[in-house]
């Protein structure tokens, strides 16, 4: 799917400017523990998280991820968005819970990376 598909599947809001939404994503990782995300490198491109601080962007950046979805209506602040925009990452925010957001994306074909 494309980042633009995630936007509509999750009724999400796009918070960054300039990140290409037509980029393809195939795998995702959902977690609130950053070292768990870092433990399984396998070309995931989307991070789904309920955590809201700059280390989320830094962690995604280390993994070369291109899209972060903040669940439960968490709105990252301007500093976090700036970090993401510098890196060409798309930041989305949805009211769905982690469980529901992951379920919806899985049902539409997004998968966890193999490790």
């Amino acid at each position, binding site marked *: 799917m494309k980042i633009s598909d995630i936007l509509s599947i999750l009724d999400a809001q796009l918070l960054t400017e300039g990140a290409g939404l037509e980029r393809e994503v195939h795998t995702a990782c959902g977690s609130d523990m950053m070292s768990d995300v870092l433990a399984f490198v396998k070309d995931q491109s989307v991070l789904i998280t309920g955590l809201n601080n700059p280390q989320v962007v*830094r962690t995604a950046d*280390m993994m070369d991820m291109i899209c972060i979805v903040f669940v439960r209506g968490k709105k990252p602040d301007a500093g976090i968005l700036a970090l993401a925009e510098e890196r060409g990452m798309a930041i989305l925010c949805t009211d769905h819970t982690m469980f529901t957001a992951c379920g919806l994306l899985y049902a539409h074909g997004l998968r966890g990376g193999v490790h």
Partner: protein
Amino acid sequence: MAEPIRLDYVVPGDDFTRAGEASADLKSRLKSLGFPPAAIRRAAIALYEGEINLAIHAGGGRITVALTPERIEMALDDEGPGIPDIALAMSEGYSTAPDEVRSLGFGAGMGLPNMKKYTDEFSIASTVGEGTHIRMAVLTAG
């Protein structure tokens, strides 16, 4: 043979939002120097984990990087509380991180194991009350 390129970073102990700046800087330099992407990613993740540890467990510290075409060498030194039982600290899931650190998304006890896993050479020495010293290297061919 050319001299290694040296990079020095200071990791502040009182500003968690800035932890990760050194790793991000290293990553972009390695990219512009043309290092292989897989080696860049392994080195950047290992350094990021170490940098976070400096910020949350050690009250800050120093990072020294030495680059040659074959090797990405990273040294992390702090004068924090030290680690009483290194074997225990190296095991997956062991963490002394307090709740406030967990609420920031750290404290899974995966950082040190990740650092060892992603590097080709890893050593750690620590003295309680004096500090912790980590040496890691990623080989670009490996």
